[in-house]
């Protein structure tokens, strides 16, 4: 059975940062259609800062929750914007969920993912269907939990999460935005994928790749 130590978690941030960098232009373009065209910039800035901060830590002497809190703080301070408080809260809640552990087992990893989704929801007060990153994060967390409960193991559970995120993000195209910048567009937001949901897919898929060996 997989266990995930602090070094693996640091690697996870490198994986996310790399994936987001590759995705940056697409995310800016999506945000240009219904927002202010900067989502790729914010996400790259945030995850580069998080990666730089956590890879500078001495992994052997650092608990996972400390690393996650450090990631939260550095993401937030580099970014602000909407993504800053949302992802910072995600990682702080993730940290709380694994507090005291020196390494995460499979259940811990899924609990972290669920705590992250809950953190985003608490911070942003968005419900599923309001065309935000929550439309990817909430079903992803739920799918991972269900798969693990059904005894599927971490790799398959994270695959289920990534699939659910993709489906959720796709579904934002048919939604009218009710939160965030795009909420002023009314019907004009229809037909376009929410950039935060799109980047959530990238983030969750990078988590999957780096944690599911």
């Amino acid at each position, binding site marked *: 059975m997989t266990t995930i130590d602090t070094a693996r978690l640091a690697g996870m941030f490198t994986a996310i940062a790399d994936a987001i960098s590759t995705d940056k232009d697409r995310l800016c373009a999506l945000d*240009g*259609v219904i927002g*202010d*065209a900067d989502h790729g910039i914010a996400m790259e800035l945030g995850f580069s800062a998080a990666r730089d901060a956590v890879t500078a830590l001495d992994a052997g002497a650092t608990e996972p929750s400390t690393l996650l809190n450090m990631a939260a703080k550095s993401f*937030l301070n580099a970014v*602000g914007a909407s993504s800053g*408080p949302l992802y910072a809260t995600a990682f702080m809640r993730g940290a709380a969920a694994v507090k005291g552990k020196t390494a995460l087992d499979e259940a811990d990893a899924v609990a972290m993912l669920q705590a992250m989704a809950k953190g985003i929801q608490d911070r942003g007060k968005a419900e599923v269907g309001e065309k935000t990153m929550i439309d990817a994060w909430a079903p992803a967390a739920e799918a991972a939990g269900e798969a693990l409960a059904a005894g599927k193991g971490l790799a398959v559970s994270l695959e289920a999460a990534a699939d659910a995120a993709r489906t959720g993000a796709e579904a934002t195209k048919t939604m009218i935005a009710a939160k965030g910048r795009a*909420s*002023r567009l009314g019907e004009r937001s229809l037909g376009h994928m929410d950039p935060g949901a799109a980047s959530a897919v990238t983030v969750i898929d990078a988590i999957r790749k780096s944690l599911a060996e």
Partner: protein
Amino acid sequence: MKTKKLINDGGKAVDEMLAGILAAHPRHLDAIPGSPRSIISRDGPRPGKVGLVIGGGSGHEPTFLGFVGKGLADAAAIGNVFASPPPDPILECAKAASGGAGVLFMYGNYAGDVMNFDMAAEMAAMDDIEVRTVLSTDDVASAPRSERHKRRGVAGNFFIFKAAGAACDRMLSFDECERLAKKANDHTFTMGVALSPCSLPQTRRPNFEIGADEMEIGMGIHGEPGVARGPLKSADEVTDEMLDRILEEMTPSRGDRVAVLVNSLGSTPLMELYIMNRRLSQRLADIGVGVHATWVGNYCTSLEMAGASITVHRLDGELQAMLDHPCDCAMFRAG
């Protein structure tokens, strides 16, 4: 092909801009040591005065830094381009602006700003600084009247911050400052129109697409789509369309007095703004509304976006007194 900009590194544009601002305005502005994105008035915060902290994303200059000064805001927290500042610099502003009588947070109503300023307010509370928040929601295009609280804050910040800054400078109570700030917001109505996009320094790509003969009515100051896109019309028609929408909300009576701001979103020159103001002033005169004061120029921009906004600020005795209260800020004259 990338858009042309006189910058060095797109990722450093905001910090380099701030360095240039501090170098240009040493008599007015200073950075808070250790918190380079927190800019404070050299002459503003003082014991017993309600502190006024404003802020938001960069790219709207002279908003927000232009409003920092005696009689206006005590401090501003500055985010990345079109991105709210994070809580830390906001908190530092709150500490520096606090005179023990409470601190007002004022900023445009955007999800990102609300989350970051709220986090900062929670942190300030832990430092025993009482914070109250007044959001500006003057952009009539961004939500129906019944949902005014959902609207964006745009160029109307000019009047809204001005009123609040005057109230604070007059050493009014926290309750009074808050009341006047809210009232100024309730009395302020803005409509904008965009003709062509800007580009972020990090990407140097146009942030939206628009046809060569199109305009977008109601576009936000970050390029967020507005209420309608259509063929470019004449200045008078555009002014009428914007003003009609404002008047519908404001429902003025003959004899009312207002202040107006005709604002460039960036590259629309003064010639066009004044042509619009000609129509605007004629229309207001026709309905018997008196114009107490007019500002025309680049006050709340979207980098080099082309377009303009009209703001009408409905005055009564106390709002007029707040508007006329002297202030001294770095980048323009406002009182």
